C-alpha cells in the first residue's frame, strides 16, 4: 500500500489503523485513523502529521482520532476527534474550526418526486430567493444587539419564540438547539458586527441547501428510517449545510490570538501555531468555551431560520401549509464543536472538527423520540453524488467518544477543480442529469464539483463496517442552492 506518509501504521482492524505514540516526540497517546486501505492511500500527508500533532496536546485521553473523510485542516485535521480531561486538559479553537457549529439539518416532507418534479424549477427559484447565499448576503431578520445576545443564549429556542419554526423542532436538534453556558460578554464587538445581519443565510464554499429524494432501493434499514420519518417511495427531503457565519468565524479568530499569548503564560508548546490552546479550566479556556457556545447557538438559530424559509417556500409553491406537507425536522447535528461529555475516563471536553456526534441508543442526552433508535447522523456528500442518513451506535460510545464522519472529504484543490470544469458547464451537465442548480458564484460552483471529493459511499461503508454508525438511507440530489 502506497501512503503519503512514512509513519508506522499498525492495522488494528480492516478499518482502523494506529500510529503508535513512539512515532513522534511528544505524543502522549497513539493516533487512530478510521479508513479502509483504499481510503488510507488517498489521504493527504497532512492527516498523518496533524493527527499526531493533536496526540501531543496536554490532557488528551485514549487516542487522537481521524475519521475516513479526513483531510488536512488548520491545526486539527478535518475529520479529527480528540477528548481532553476537563481537569488537566486543554481546549483548542483549532479543534473546532473557524466555522463554529457548522452542521447539517435534514427536513422531511410527505411529497414525492412525482409531486415535485413538475414544479422543481419554480421551487428552486423560490428557495434561492428566500435563503440568501454567497459573499456579503444578509438575512431578512432584523436584529439589534440585545436580540442578537438572546440568540447567543437561546439558540433555536429564540427562533421558535419568534414564530420561525414549530415547538417540536427543538426535540429534533442536538442539545435541543440551545447549548447552556453561552455568555455574550465573552464575544467581541467585531464578532457581533460581522454576524448581526447574517441570520438565515447559507454562506458559500461547501455550504448548500439541497432538495433530495429518498428512494426505496436506497433505504438500508426501513424500520429505523421509518422511526426517523423517512418513508421512501421517492420521498422528498431537504438538507441544509451551514454554520455560524461571520459571527463564529470572528469568535474563532479572536480566541486564536488570545490563546497564542495564553500558551506562553501556561508554558504550553504546540507543534503548529494553529493548535493554539489553553487549559480548559483557565480563564482563557472558559472564556472561549462561553464564546464558542454563543456561536454554536447562533448556528442552530441560523439553520432554524433557514428551515422556516424552506417551509415558506414549499408552502408558496405547493399552495398548502408546511404542516400539511409533513415538513418536520428529522435532525440537526453539529460537526464543528467542543462539548463536555462523560465517558469511562470521566468528564472530557470532546473536540469534533469535521466529525459528527453519533450517540448510540439509550443515551440520556437524546430526546425521547430518538432514544430507542440512536442519534440520527447526517452526512453530506458532494452536490453531484448523494448524502447519507445514519444512526449512532454503542460501539461509537466505546471506540470514538461517540463520534463518526461528517461528509465525503475533498481530494482535489479548489484551483484544480476550477481548471477541470467551468461553473456554467457543470450546471448544464447536472441539469442533464436532472439536478437543478442555483448558484451565486459560478467559480464557486466549479470548485464544488463532485470529482473534487472522495466517493461518499466508500466513506460511509467504512464507518458502517467499523461499527461506529449504521446506514439508514442514501439521499439523492435533485436541486441544489450554493453561495
Amino acid at each position: 500500500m502506497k501512503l503519503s506518509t512514512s509513519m508506522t501504521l499498525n492495522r488494528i482492524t480492516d478499518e482502523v489503523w494506529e500510529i503508535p505514540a513512539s512515532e513522534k516526540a511528544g505524543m502522549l497517546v497513539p493516533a487512530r485513523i478510521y479508513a479502509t486501505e483504499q481510503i488510507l492511500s488517498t489521504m493527504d500527508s497532512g492527516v498523518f502529521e496533524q493527527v499526531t500533532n493533536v496526540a501531543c496536546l496536554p490532557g488528551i485521553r485514549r487516542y487522537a482520532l481521524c475519521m475516513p473523510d479526513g483531510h488536512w485542516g488548520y491545526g486539527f485535521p478535518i475529520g479529527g476527534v480528540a477528548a481532553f480531561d476537563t481537569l488537566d486538559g486543554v481546549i483548542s479553537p483549532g479543534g473546532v474550526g473557524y466555522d463554529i457549529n457548522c452542521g447539517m439539518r435534514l427536513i422531511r416532507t410527505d411529497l414525492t418526486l412525482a409531486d415535485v418534479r413538475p414544479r422543481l424549477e419554480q421551487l428552486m427559484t423560490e428557495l434561492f430567493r428566500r435563503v440568501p447565499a454567497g459573499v456579503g448576503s444578509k438575512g431578512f431578520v432584523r436584529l439589534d444587539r440585545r436580540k442578537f445576545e438572546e440568540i447567543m443564549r437561546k439558540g433555536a429556542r429564540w427562533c421558535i419564540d419568534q414564530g420561525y419554526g414549530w415547538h417540536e423542532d427543538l426535540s429534533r436538534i442536538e442539545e435541543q438547539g440551545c447549548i447552556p453556558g453561552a455568555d455574550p460578554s465573552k464575544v467581541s464587538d467585531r464578532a457581533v458586527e460581522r454576524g448581526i445581519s447574517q441570520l438565515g443565510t447559507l454562506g458559500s464554499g461547501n455550504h448548500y441547501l439541497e432538495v433530495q429524494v429518498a428512494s426505496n432501493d436506497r433505504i438500508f434499514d426501513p424500520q429505523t428510517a421509518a422511526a426517523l420519518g423517512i418513508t421512501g417511495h421517492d420521498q422528498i427531503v431537504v438538507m441544509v449545510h451551514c454554520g455560524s457565519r461571520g459571527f463564529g468565524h470572528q469568535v474563532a479568530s479572536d480566541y486564536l490570538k488570545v490563546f497564542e499569548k495564553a500558551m506562553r503564560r501556561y508554558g504550553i508548546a504546540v507543534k503548529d501555531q494553529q493548535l493554539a490552546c489553553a487549559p480548559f479550566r483557565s480563564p482563557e479556556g472558559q472564556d472561549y468555551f462561553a464564546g464558542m457556545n454563543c456561536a454554536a447557538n447562533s448556528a442552530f438559530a441560523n439553520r432554524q431560520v433557514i428551515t422556516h424559509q424552506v417551509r415558506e417556500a414549499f408552502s408558496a409553491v405547493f399552495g398548502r401549509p408546511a404542516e400539511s406537507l409533513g415538513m418536520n425536522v428529522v435532525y440537526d447535528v453539529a460537526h464543528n464543536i467542543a462539548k463536555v461529555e462523560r465517558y469511562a475516563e470521566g468528564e472530557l471536553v470532546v473536540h469534533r472538527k469535521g466529525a459528527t456526534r453519533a450517540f448510540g441508543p439509550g443515551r440520556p442526552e437524546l430526546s425521547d423520540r430518538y432514544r430507542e433508535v440512536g442519534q440520527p447522523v447526517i452526512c453530506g456528500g458532494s452536490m453531484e453524488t448523494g448524502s447519507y442518513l445514519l444512526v449512532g451506535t454503542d460501539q461509537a460510545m466505546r471506540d470514538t467518544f461517540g463520534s463518526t464522519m461528517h461528509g465525503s472529504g475533498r481530494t482535489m484543490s479548489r484551483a484544480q477543480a476550477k481548471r477541470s470544469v467551468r461553473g456554467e458547464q457543470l450546471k448544464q451537465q447536472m441539469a442533464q442529469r436532472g439536478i437543478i442548480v442555483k448558484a451565486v458564484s459560478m467559480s464557486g460552483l466549479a470548485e464544488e464539483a463532485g470529482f473534487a471529493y472522495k466517493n461518499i459511499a466508500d466513506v460511509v461503508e467504512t464507518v458502517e463496517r467499523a461499527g461506529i454508525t449504521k446506514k439508514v438511507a442514501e439521499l439523492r440530489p435533485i436541486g441544489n442552492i450554493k453561495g
Partner: protein
Amino acid sequence: MTHRFTFLEDVALADTAFQASGDFPSELILAATQAVIETMVNPDTVSPRWHRTIEHQAPDLPSLLFDWLSDIVYLKDAHGVVFHEATAVVTEDRPHGGWNARGHLTGETVDPSRHELRADVKAVTKHLYEVRRDDDHWIARVVLDI
C-alpha cells in the same frame, strides 16, 4: 512600483492560499490585499461607491499584514461590501520600534446581479503564514479559510 500575487495550489486543499510579493512593505501589503479582494470578487465588476480608511500599528511586519488582511475580511461582513481597490502606505516606526500602515479601501454593497462574486472568506489563518525578505523583495504566504 511592482507588486504581485499568485494563488498557490495544493497548499490548502479545501481553501485558498496565495503568495504576495513587493519591492517594499507597502507593495507587499497591496499585493496581499489585492489577492484577498480577488478571492472574494472580480473587482472590475465593483464600483468605488463605499470608502474606508484603514490604519494599523503592530510590533512587526507579519503582525501588521495579518491584522490588515483580517480587517478586510471583517469589513466584508460587517458592512456587507465587496471591494474595488485599495491603497496602502507602510512605514517603520524607527524611534519606537514597530510598523504602521495607513490606506484606503473602496467598494460597494454586495449586489449579486452586478458583481461577479467568488468565495466568502471566513478568516485569515496562521497556517504556513510567513512574511520574509528575500534579496530585494518582500514575500508573504497566506492561507485563507473558505
